[in-house]
């Protein structure tokens, strides 16, 4: 077992995938000598050489578009988008080509492309460097979308994504890259066979509880756990679910929890409007309506462009905002007690 940060776990995951399958190539801006601006590809150029670790020209549509060509040729490209906010120039190639080619060719052409995206805010970054674009990809049929929240998942799920014959958009929460995880989540068995790991599509009950189901993913998992701890002092038992797979969502796990608790809060950093939280609530309401004792609530970023760094703490849902919603689903006094909705 090796204790690794998420950043190092991702590097290790890439290394394993590249060692196991020589059709895996990684490509992106500054991923060679520099090892990427977050150093996730650190050392790979030296180990695997420039044929497999490709510093590309500065053009995201070009990166994803050439990855499509490489996939046509039977490679498994792992694309690094430098920051979340720079994926949009590649949107056409992702939506019209990467997502659709398998369907368009009736399964004759596979697109085993993994698109890694350092993701979301909370790190005091400049404009366009803290975006949460996951809902765009969740809404795009033909893509799988995952988001990791700890080193162990990062290591395992990244390899699963690369091994998957479908395209996967892989979100890496920037603010957890160097977070210190004590315990099992930060302890990785680099010799373990990933085929023994649970399949990529499964959600995880991170903490059991009985009163409220708190659904989240990415860096918000830690905030949700903090909220659960705080609520415990207050006599409220929160079950925290890390979705891990945002598309498809593992509704079996989520629904089982909701049937138990009857109350749901979903939290994420992206804006709420037509976001992942809306999807989860709509589906859960359909599937568990008669178990619900209160309206499922969202605690999300505001529906605004990502704010300047000094204001981001008012945007990313924190423990207090989550607990306020928990109070609301429990019908306890809360911020909106006096507001007509």
């Amino acid at each position, binding site marked *: 077992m090796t204790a690794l940060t998420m950043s190092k776990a991702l590097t290790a995951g890439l290394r394993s995938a590249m060692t196991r399958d020589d059709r895996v190539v990684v490509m992106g801006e500054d991923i060679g000598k520099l090892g990427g601006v977050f150093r996730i590809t650190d050392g790979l150029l030296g180990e695997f050489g420039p044929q497999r670790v490709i510093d590309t020209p500065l053009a995201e*549509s070009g990166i994803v*578009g*050439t990855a499509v*060509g490489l996939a046509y040729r039977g490679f498994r490209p792992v694309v690094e988008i430098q920051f979340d906010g720079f994926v949009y120039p590649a949107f056409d190639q992702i939506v019209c080509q990467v997502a659709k080619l*398998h369907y368009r060719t009736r399964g004759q052409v596979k697109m085993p492309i993994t698109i890694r995206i350092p993701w979301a805010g909370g790190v005091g970054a400049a404009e366009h460097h803290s975006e949460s674009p996951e809902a765009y990809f969740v809404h795009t049929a033909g893509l799988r979308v995952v988001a990791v929240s700890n080193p162990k998942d990062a290591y395992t799920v990244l390899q699963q994504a690369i091994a998957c014959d479908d395209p996967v958009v892989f979100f890496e929460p920037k603010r957890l890259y160097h977070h210190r995880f004590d315990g099992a989540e930060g302890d990785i068995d680099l010799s373990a066979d990933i085929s023994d790991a649970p399949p990529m599509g499964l959600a995880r009950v991170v903490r059991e509880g009985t009163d409220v189901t708190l659904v989240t993913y990415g860096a918000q998992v830690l905030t949700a756990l903090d909220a659960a701890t705080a609520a415990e002092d207050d006599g409220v038992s929160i079950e925290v679910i890390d979705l891990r797979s945002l598309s498809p969502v593992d509704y079996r796990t989520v629904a089982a929890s909701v049937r138990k608790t009857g109350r749901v809060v979903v939290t994420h950093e992206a804006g709420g409007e037509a976001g992942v939280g809306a999807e989860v609530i709509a589906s859960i309401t359909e599937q568990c309506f008669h178990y619900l004792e209160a309206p499922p609530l969202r605690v999300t970023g505001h529906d605004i462009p990502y704010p300047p760094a000094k204001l981001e703490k008012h945007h990313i849902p924190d423990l207090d905002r989550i607990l306020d919603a928990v109070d609301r689903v429990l019908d306890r006094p809360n911020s909106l007690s006096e507001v007509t909705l």
Partner: protein
Amino acid sequence: MMYTLTTQTAHGADTGEVSRLLTPDGERVADPVLDLWAADLDVQTLRTLYRDMAITRRIDAEGVALQRQGQLGLWAPAQGQEAIQAASARACRDDDFLFPSYRELGVLVVRGARPADLVLGWRGEVHGTFDPYALNVATPQIIIGAQALHATGYAMGIQRDGTDQVAVAYFGDGATSQGDVNEAMVFASSFGAPVVFVCSNNQWAISEPVTVQSHFPIAGRAPGFGIPSIRVDGNDAIACAAAMRWALDQARSGRGPAFIEAVTYRMGPHTTSDDPTRYRDKDEVELWRGRDPLTRLEAHLRHLGAFDDAFATEVAAAGDAFAAGMREAALTARTRPAIEVLDDVYAEPHSGIDRQRERFAAYLSGFDGEEAAR
């Protein structure tokens, strides 16, 4: 250092400066560069080329007819562009991989597409018809310019596999305005990837004359990216073949990408939905009719004594047979059952699609067999 403009404005019916080996009357003329690449094109090769082009034209007419008869939803005519399509594809090796647009009918024909492959897509039965790996041709692209990047990426893959194959990207004059085509040139040049860009400048992007995209010859753009290019008479099959052989050699021998602008003309409407009388003169079309690639090659073959009635009859019969196959494929097409809309979204099991399939199957089972197969 100052870079000025040495090339001239391209406009209207003027083809501007182009490299050419056949006059509109089919007379062989010299070209210092192309002659090198045309030297060993023998008569048999030229007859094959003529055959490809004639079959393409016949098929194209069938496609238009089938659309008019309601058998197809749409058709994008290739008439007038047969020379560059057939000649460039014939110049390729079988293991070269081609990335066409929707209009490269002649490329599909040369590559051995079957009649059904040409109708089931436009009929709306399926998106992609043939197996790309069977023909070494990618599923034709509708998103303008996107395939230029795919070809470039494929060529990067060839480099990694260490083979001497070439990838070919086909696109139109309009496509050269898209970021993707320009990014493809950047990537291809940066990596020295073995890709050939074939731009069929048919003077029009739907209703927009090429001058909306560029007042200057398109071929002049490639060298700025570090890609040598040639501007060829796209209605001169021999020149097209020679230019493609030059370009393929450049790419195959490790000297990186090459670019061809084939100056041609879209004789028909953009698609069967289009009405070109709204935006262009009949005179322009008539002028180009005089530059027809088939009559030109036929005249040349006649000069060579390599075109007779027997050949003409054989070619016509082959075209008719293929066209009959298309009609047959259209008339006997069976639309897939409703539930299959959910097939092939993913390559591996997917709980979301599974759930939708289960529900949709339950829904469909509420109808009697006939209804469900509507």
